[in-house]
């Protein structure tokens, strides 16, 4: 974070809110997205996203009816795309919490106009992620047995809380819940704004109910600010814990390539990496759809590029460390598994990962790339792909050639694997577009708060006379 710690005085310069906007301009601009008609581009987006989402449900239905055999999973590769996608989605979720919580604690004011969308992204990513652990058993109804420690008079049986999967259940569900709370608490004042602006009685009722009767009284703000701070404080260790615990799924096993101690930090860095990549992808899209240049400024995007550069380097370093430790451990299996990653049957996956995760972010050393929308869009896509490959490499290449050469195998995805994965992307985009359409995509009150500081620093014109 060091490179991000902006001096409180410097943070206003260049101003985060541009185009000499006033409080009401902020309100109008953001609210208009929700109140006005959806632009054509939004419909284009939905036209792409919704069919894919439907494909997801088709694939899941087929899976449940037939069995895991419709995927490519086999012995020895018991986990394939299912868990790969799970880890990938969870990782993507991290950026949202990180932006809204950690940057909040670090007083990174520039977070304000992106945190809302980022949090939404978190929720939707977690939702997509949650699909996999549930369905990768092929019999999701059995989940009742293991997701919750239900006391029951029939079995006297309990979960095995030593299992990292059990930790996962708690970590992911907690993460999802807390993120949702955090997100909703942030929404309340803005929903009140929409309520007050509402022209139709229906909107007034809906937003009225959602905003819980928020009035913005000093008393409310007093508790509200503390609550927000506390949630941020809780989310920060939480977000770090989630991917650490996900990494335990692998780290606590004894499989060469999984059984390693650097996984927690390495996974968290990777998560932030991929998360920010996804934020950039979505923000550039949102900007394109709604023209939010003055709110999502180049400064936001450039900062995020810097974060990607930093985390990208951490991840790259982790790759190197793995090889070093493998060699240094003098453990035959460990050594083989890593050489096998780079030069075995899955070499293509490994080198795609390196190209996307280590090489691609290097462009961000240059401001030209950090400030070019097309460049960062493309690079962010590359990073998303690269991070998917990272998870695939970790899972598949470690599993397919473990201890006994007699039971070595190979994993080939089926069309159902692919459909399920693409489907979750569709679901994710659908949810995100709906969010853009019906909820304030940018935290109105927070932006005004920032604007107020600019005003008091004499950088903006808050009001042009009374707006009667």
């Amino acid at each position, binding site marked *: 974070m060091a490179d991000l710690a902006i001096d409180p005085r410097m943070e206003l310069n260049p101003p985060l809110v541009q185009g000499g906007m006033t409080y009401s301009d902020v309100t109008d601009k953001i609210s208009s997205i929700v109140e006005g008609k959806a632009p054509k581009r939004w419909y284009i987006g939905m036209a792409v996203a919704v069919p894919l989402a439907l494909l997801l449900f088709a694939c899941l239905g087929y899976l449940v009816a037939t069995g895991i055999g419709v995927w*490519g999973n086999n012995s020895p590769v018991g*986990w394939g795309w299912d868990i790969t996608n799970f880890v990938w989605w969870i990782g993507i979720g991290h950026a949202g919490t990180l932006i809204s919580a950690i940057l909040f604690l670090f007083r990174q004011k520039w977070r304000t106009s992106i945190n809302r969308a980022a949090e939404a992204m978190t929720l939707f990513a977690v939702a997509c992620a949650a699909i996999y652990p549930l369905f990768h*058993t092929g019999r999701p109804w059995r989940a009742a047995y293991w997701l919750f420690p239900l006391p029951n008079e029939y079995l006297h*049986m309990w979960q095995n809380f*030593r299992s*990292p999967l059990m930790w996962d259940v708690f970590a992911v569900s907690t993460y999802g819940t807390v993120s949702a709370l955090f997100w909703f608490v942030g929404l309340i004042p803005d929903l009140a704004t929409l309520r007050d602006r509402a022209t139709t009685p229906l909107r007034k009722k809906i937003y009225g109910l959602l905003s819980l009767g928020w009035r913005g009284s000093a008393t409310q703000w007093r508790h509200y600010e503390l609550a927000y701070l506390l949630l941020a404080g809780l989310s920060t260790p939480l977000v770090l814990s989630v991917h650490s615990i996900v990494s335990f799924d692998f780290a606590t096993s004894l499989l060469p390539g999984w059984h390693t101690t650097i996984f927690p930090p390495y996974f968290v860095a990777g998560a932030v990496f991929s998360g920010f990549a996804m934020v950039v992808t979505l923000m550039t899209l949102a900007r394109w759809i709604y023209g939010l240049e003055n709110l999502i400024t180049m400064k936001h995007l450039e900062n995020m590029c810097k974060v990607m550069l930093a985390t990208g380097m951490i991840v790259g370093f982790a790759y190197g460390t793995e090889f070093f430790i493998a060699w240094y451990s003098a453990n*035959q299996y460990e050594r083989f598994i890593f050489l096998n990653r780079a030069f075995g049957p899955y070499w293509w996956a490994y080198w795609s990962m390196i190209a996307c995760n280590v090489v691609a972010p290097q462009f961000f050393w240059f401001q030209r790339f950090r400030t070019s929308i097309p460049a960062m869009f493309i690079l962010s896509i590359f990073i998303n792909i690269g991070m998917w490959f990272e998870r695939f490499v970790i899972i598949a290449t470690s599993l397919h050639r473990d201890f006994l050469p007699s039971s070595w*195998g190979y994993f080939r995805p089926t069309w159902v694997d692919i459909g399920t994965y693409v489907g979750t992307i569709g679901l994710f985009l659908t949810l995100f577009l709906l969010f853009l359409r019906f909820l304030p995509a940018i935290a109105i009150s927070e932006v005004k708060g920032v604007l107020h500081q600019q005003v008091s620093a004499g950088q903006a014109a808050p009001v042009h006379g009374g707006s009667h």
Partner: protein
Amino acid sequence: MNELIQLNLSNLTGRKYWRSLNQLADTPEFRQWVEREFPEGASELLDSGSRRTLLKLMAAGFGLAGLTACRRPVEKILPLSKGVEGYVHGRPLHYATAVQACGAATGLIVECNDGRPTKVEGNPRHPFSLGATNAFQQAMILDLYDPDRARQVQKQGVKSGWAQFESWWLEAASKLGDGAGLRILSPRTASPSLDALKAEIAKKYPNSVWVEYDAVNFDRVVEGARLAFGQPLMPQYRFDQADVVVALDCDFLGLDTMTAQPVKQFAARRRPEEGRELNRLYAVEPNFTVTGAMADHRLRARASDIAAVALALARELNVSGAELKVLDGAGGRQKKFLAAVAKDLLAHKGRSLVLAGPRQPAEVHALVALINQALGNLGQTVSYTRPPFAPADSLAAVRQLAGDLAAGRVTVLFALGGNPVYSLPADHNWAELFRKTAAVALAFDENETWKAALWQLPEAHPFEAWGDVRALDGTASIQQPQIQPLFGGRSALEIAALIAGRPQRRGYDIVRSYWTSQWGADAEKKWQQALYEGVIEGTRFPAVEVKADAARVLAAIQPALKAAPAGIETVFYPSWHTFDGRFANNAWMQETPDPMTKLVWDNAALLSPATARRLGVQDGDVLELSAGGRQIHCPAMVLPGHADDSISLQLGFGRAACGRVGRGVGHRVEGLRAEANFWFGPAEVRRTGAKYKLVTTQEHHTLIEPITGLKRNNIVEEFTVEEYRRRAEHGKHEPHPPTDLFPEFDYSKGYQWGMAIDLNACIGCNACMVACTAENNIPVVGKEQVGKGREMHWIRLDRYFSGEEDDPQAVMQPMACVQCEKAPCESVCPVAATAHSPEGINEMAYNRCVGTRYCLNNCPYKVRRFNFLNWNKDVPEIRKMVFNPDVTVRMRGVMEKCNYCVQRIEEKRSQAKAEGRRPIRDGEVLTACQQVCPADAIVFGNINDPESRVAKLKRQARDYAVLEELNTKPRTTYLARLRNPNPELV
């Protein structure tokens, strides 16, 4: 005893019998109920395996297993109306019987649950079983319930009946006169009762001919003895007496003897712990067989070069005193090898044994007999008795038959069993010839012969029919039915009786009367005893005193031994999957991998790496093989250690007329197999350019890592006898106990189950795999799924090659769940579906498993198997009769694995408790794999009892744990493979 059989057969037909007593939840109400409850899943439910599966899905449906109880399917209990002697519902009954293959019988004991045979075991009293069986005999039980069996008497495919057939026959018989037009074609049989009937038929129809033919037979062995000693004889080997064994193209541990006896005897000499010194095995062979894998020294030679090798060996040993002409072919390396072998043999006169395989010509067998005689082995390690079957040159007889058929000299042809149209030499179009006459086919399934016949009669399974059979040494056994014919089939014996015009035609009467006439006075007692023991006293043939004049024999045979022509030759072998085609429709066998190639659901043209390189052939390239104007296509597969310029082909595939399992599986090589190259002969090879997908269960076949080229050392341990002796002096090396994070769990009390597997005894014969499949209701998944790595075998045989690719050594490693005390699978299961019993068994609770597959990922031995799909979905009703009622049938989404046959442990435990709460004795609980193992390589027991066999073995210096350094503390440990090399050859 026989009353019992009569009774329980007269009661009900097998099917109903089973349905009722097993209380299958299959009543109409139940089915309706299911449909009501699960409109969508119902279809899946109704044809998904047994009701166990049904209920499991219901449990799933309600989320909590207990809730199933709240919806109560009405289940009926249908007790017998009248009792059956000795029958207790829920307690299996065991009956002794015997089955024969290729004229050799093996004694069996069949377990029957509620009237349905479910499991085959060896009969310890039978000299060729000694309590063990091979894989095929284990799989026979599945054939019994094969839904594709012939079910109906037909005339040219039109439904008919036994009565119609009999009247037709009486009609036809009346026209037969002296029987000049009568031909009977049957597999080799060694059945006293049938011999008696043959005699009657011969008396009734003096000019009739009874031809016996088997695609795999011992003709040449017997002929060889005739050459050597002037009379047709069958060699009887004593491998346990031989310190040095030289096998010339003889897979005596594998498919060249269909019995367990040689393995038992051989393995007895591979256990240094038992004090006797290790024997030494030299193998000279074209194909890389399991015998070759066990050999201490192995010489690759084409089948046609074996004669040269034998002759060279004979000269080295100076069998005749006179100088022998040696065929060219024995090259430099061979000479060195043979010199060493000869020296070793001479050093062990009377305690050595040379033998040749049934593929080799009679001359070679004669020469081998001579060698043994010269070494003074006759009467020591090999003796000769008269063969249990009528000796005859079946190829000549078949040629004659073809001629007669072609010339229309045959009016009625009986094909009693087997599948001649498929397996007879390709010189003639047998289907055509059969159609030229009134052919009567008694066939087990609607096979090629059935299709070509006029009358089509369903044959009874050996477990359905009375009979008697002789083992190779003459020992006779009664073949006792376990269940009434499921589809009203009859046995060859009964048809023969019909032909002979006997008044009594029931198999029981035929067999009973024959033996009563033999026994006279106390027949009843003897009969009871025969049924009970499974062998008949004093029927073994005495050894014949033989002496051959070396010079004369050599003079006679040397001209016959010709130098082998250069160039590629093809050799025909029985298949580990279908043997000669008879098991083609047996899914268990199709899915059990070939021990050397690990190939499933296919056969292939095996060739050496060098030859493959020369021909530019890779695995899966389809070859066109041609000889004598005949062509066949077969995919190639490179087998390290195979002899150059030789192609091994396995019989019994590409069945055109066969059940749903075997139809079109593999490629038919019989099309190339004529009288001239019946066993081997020159052939042309051409690449067709086509590709064919061959599926194996083992992707990587050595312990050498790719990329690094390092060897993995802690999986298989091998020592030479010398190294081992030195090691043994230091005693067993105990690994430094690693310091654990947590205190050890206390396993010091009560029974603690453990297993020791002797890699030095295991020959990799697959018997354990099939036995496990039968015992534990293990599903079959098919070629495609195996190709995806989804085979379900709880125990598998890992085969690793070592040494150079062209001439490697091989070692077999049976690998099942090793029951780790610190099981990596347990700690990762989120629902505790796999946990440890206080007795050290890593248990799998199927009904608890949710299917995360984490345990599979974390298992370093990769022995866990996952039901990726509902493998039991399409199991036909009749096929369900083979299920073991003591083991749950698993549904999809459930993990499963070996659990040391815990159902057998629990059975013995409750028995021991019922008998005054006595402790379970050592050796009382036998796991399925242990019980069947012909090499006694698997020992199971209580490791807490220092006197138990397993505990003793685990104290051996060669006992080791696979992947010891992972500190999983496996309960199954292995005894290192030992090799006993000849110093002169290393």
